[in-house]
């Protein structure tokens, strides 16, 4: 197969992945819509917040070395439900032997389509790499497609490991938007400009993409955490019905957000503050030059560092930290979109 055909195949792959993911998104939106009518009692998940909240409260208390309240924590014992249930999600529902609800059926359709979309996208990216005779990380279009794929892979990995199907509408929606906008930045497959012709391209971009994919998940979890937190504060009690009832407890969402960021932050540090400067030293003769792209990578790093600090600072846990995670994600997005389009700099070949 010649490179021209491969390039066309790649375009076809991206286009069809966009469509498939669009349908997956719709399926997940229907899932949420259906969840508004669903009866709460059947879901094992709905019982969980009641069990878990006190456990986690006790742990947080202990971590902060304040005297433990005692009463609530003692009643729970070893909290056997908490851990396994994190990955429970889909599996336990089926085991229960009850018919799947409409919402669950749409959720499954959405998940299958997401897997298909990710596979199509991966194939398209590989084809693109062969068509161009290099790693497919040479321009904004390719970075956007890569970013969407990595976000999907991180999401699917965490669906398998930690049961985060509840993030589906956010993740599928985000990737569809990214892929749609990527078409605006489309350039035909071609070789690399000399400035990018370095193995540091692979190291630097791969790390940045992985961190970015994780930031997407972290931002999604933080956003939903804020929504549910606010709703529960208004209601004055844990919410177990409707769309918000389908989400895990706020404590669980907060913890997932932290775990994802705790993974993403060191990777981002490596991408932006180690691999990037090493490459810059080789390519431009200085490891740090306050190029706009560097500035914003630094801002993103500082905001996520603040997020980690906020989680250990009284008055900032929970809501404050989640808001910082969203700000961090916003700076990351601005660096990719805003800086590429509105500000000229050394990274003018895009990211």
């Amino acid at each position, binding site marked *: 197969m010649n490179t021209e055909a491969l390039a066309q195949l790649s375009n076809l792959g991206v286009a069809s992945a966009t469509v498939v993911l669009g349908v997956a998104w719709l399926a997940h939106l229907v899932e949420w819509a259906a969840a508004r009518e669903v009866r709460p009692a059947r879901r094992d998940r709905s019982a969980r917040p009641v069990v878990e909240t006190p456990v986690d409260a006790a742990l947080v208390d202990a971590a902060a070395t304040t005297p433990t309240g005692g009463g609530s924590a003692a009643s729970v014992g*070893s909290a056997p439900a908490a851990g396994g249930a994190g990955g429970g999600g889909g599996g336990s529902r089926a085991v229960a032997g009850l018919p799947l609800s409409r919402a669950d059926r749409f959720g499954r359709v959405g998940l299958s389509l997401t897997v298909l979309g990710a596979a199509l996208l991966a194939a398209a990216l590989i084809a693109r790499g062969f068509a161009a005779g290099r790693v497919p990380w040479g321009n904004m279009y390719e970075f956007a497609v890569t970013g969407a794929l990595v976000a999907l892979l991180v999401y699917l990995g965490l669906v398998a490991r930690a049961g985060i199907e509840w993030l589906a509408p956010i993740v599928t929606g985000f990737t569809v938007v990214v892929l749609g906008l990527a078409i605006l930045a489309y350039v035909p497959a071609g*070789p690399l400009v000399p400035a990018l012709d370095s193995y540091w391209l692979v190291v630097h971009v791969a790390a940045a993409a992985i961190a970015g994919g994780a930031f997407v998940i972290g931002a999604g979890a933080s956003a939903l955490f804020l929504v549910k937190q606010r709703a529960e504060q208004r209601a004055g009690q844990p919410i177990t019905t409707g769309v918000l009832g389908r989400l895990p407890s706020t404590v669980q969402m907060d913890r997932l957000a932290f775990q994802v960021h705790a993974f993403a932050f060191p990777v981002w540090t490596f991408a932006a503050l180690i691999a990037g400067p090493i*490459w810059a*030293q080789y390519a*431009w003769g200085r490891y740090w030059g306050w190029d706009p792209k560097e500035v914003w990578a630094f801002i993103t790093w500082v*905001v996520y560092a*603040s997020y980690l600090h906020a989680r250990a600072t009284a008055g900032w846990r929970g809501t404050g930290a989640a808001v910082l995670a969203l700000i961090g994600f916003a700076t990351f997005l601005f660096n990719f979109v805003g800086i590429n389009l509105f*500000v000229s700099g050394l990274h003018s070949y895009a990211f």
Partner: protein
Amino acid sequence: MEPDGPARPPALSPRELGRWVWRQLTSMRTALLLLLLLALAAVPGSLVPQEGVDSLAVARFQIEHPALTPWLERLGMFSVYASPWFSAIYLLLLVSLIGCIVPRTAVYARALRARPPRAPSRLDRLPAYASFETDAGGDVDDTLEQAALMLRRRRFRVDVDPSDQGEGVVRAERGYLREAGNLVFHVSLVAVLVGVAVGSLWGYRGNAIVVEGRGFSNTLTQYDEFTAGALASPSSLPPFTVSLKQMTADFQTSGPQVGQPKLFEATGTVTAAPGEGARDFDIRVNHPLEVDGTSVFLVGSGYAPVVTVRDGAGDVVSSGPVPFLPTDSSYVSEGVLKVPDAEPAQLGMEGFFLPTAGRDADGVPISLFPEAADPALSLFVYTGDLGLDDGAPQSVYSLNTDDLQVVKGDDGKPERLLLQPGQTAELPDGLGSVTFETVAEFARLQISSTPLVWLPLTGLIVAVSGLLASLYVRPRRAWVRARPAQQGRRLVEVGLLDRVARVDPSRDLDDLVTELKSALNPPPPKGAGR
């Protein structure tokens, strides 16, 4: 100040005030606010052009925004990252950081020497708790010994409180590396900042254009642009010389990315110091030349038409390559030529060079391809006073036409010379002639020296290792209590406390209990070997 009633607390003494300020500054909340402030303060530098990054862009911006410029200048907006307010934020952050590290290191050192913490009076209130009764494995102290052995195997620090009135406790703790990682991370950041400071104070960086066949000596006068740190000594740079043999710039000739650069390569010889032997070099993008602690980078290329100028008397008054600076990706290049020795009047020329000349739909000359396939040189000629005699330094890339008159053709319009290699144009009014001999390429080299360049890098690598430890090492405390129960049995209680919430300690607890039980009930064959 007026006295306002007896309830007023006594004023803080300077010492107390100092302590209060120090406590505020080193508090977590202040660190957090300073971090956010740092992020915010970094923003304007990415939106307003920066002196240290792109001084041409600054000049352009200042011309376009005359009303805004004085205000921005007052605020230091054109060099944000060297401005007092930006420095103030990161210096405060540094102080806050050190003020946080020092006491925490002391606390940590004490914790390392201390015994694992005492057991809570009721282990059953811990988040993970299990108990069982047993009659195997000897007395209470033997049970405790088994538990201690098991916890040591799990890399706990263990301390046994032997039985006192029948009841004894094993205290254990692990995960000390978490705080160590945290401290290492923050100390490394300080090292990184020190390294960056040293690099920028003692380092220097400059640009020079070197035409094929010519050379470059590393002295200040040979630079087109030069910036040095406050403590660098530009007068004693390493005395190497570079001689450029060939500058190769290849571009895509087919495919969807026609005209995109494919390869930049500069070859030649380098001499580390006068009198030493020359060695060959080969600089490409991403592959700098290292010489005497200094790096030489290839950051650009361009064309230098070789032009010979004869004056009205027929004497050669200027001859050689004239670098024209590329203005876009097709290498449409602009340049000037100053001929102060021409008679009867000084000559100045200004124009552009097209590597592959063509015209767009409107007839405007453009370059069709960045390689010099069909070069053309277009020049306007001026006569008069070049202004070189008063000694004020001038850029060799711009012509001040204030005191010059443009040379006009027969039609009364400014005369445009359009030359191809080998062609000569006669100037009107017996001013002389201009010959476009051939085209040479030039390399734009960046020469830079950054002392201690390894320190920020090493610091960051260590920092990330520390960060990983501080994020992934999970401190855990464990206690095992044993006391006599009825019928000569013993009640064994095991409790776990995670100081950082993790998903589920219960499975670990189960493992622990199972192992302890089997250790207390050793299978008969190896019963003796405890």
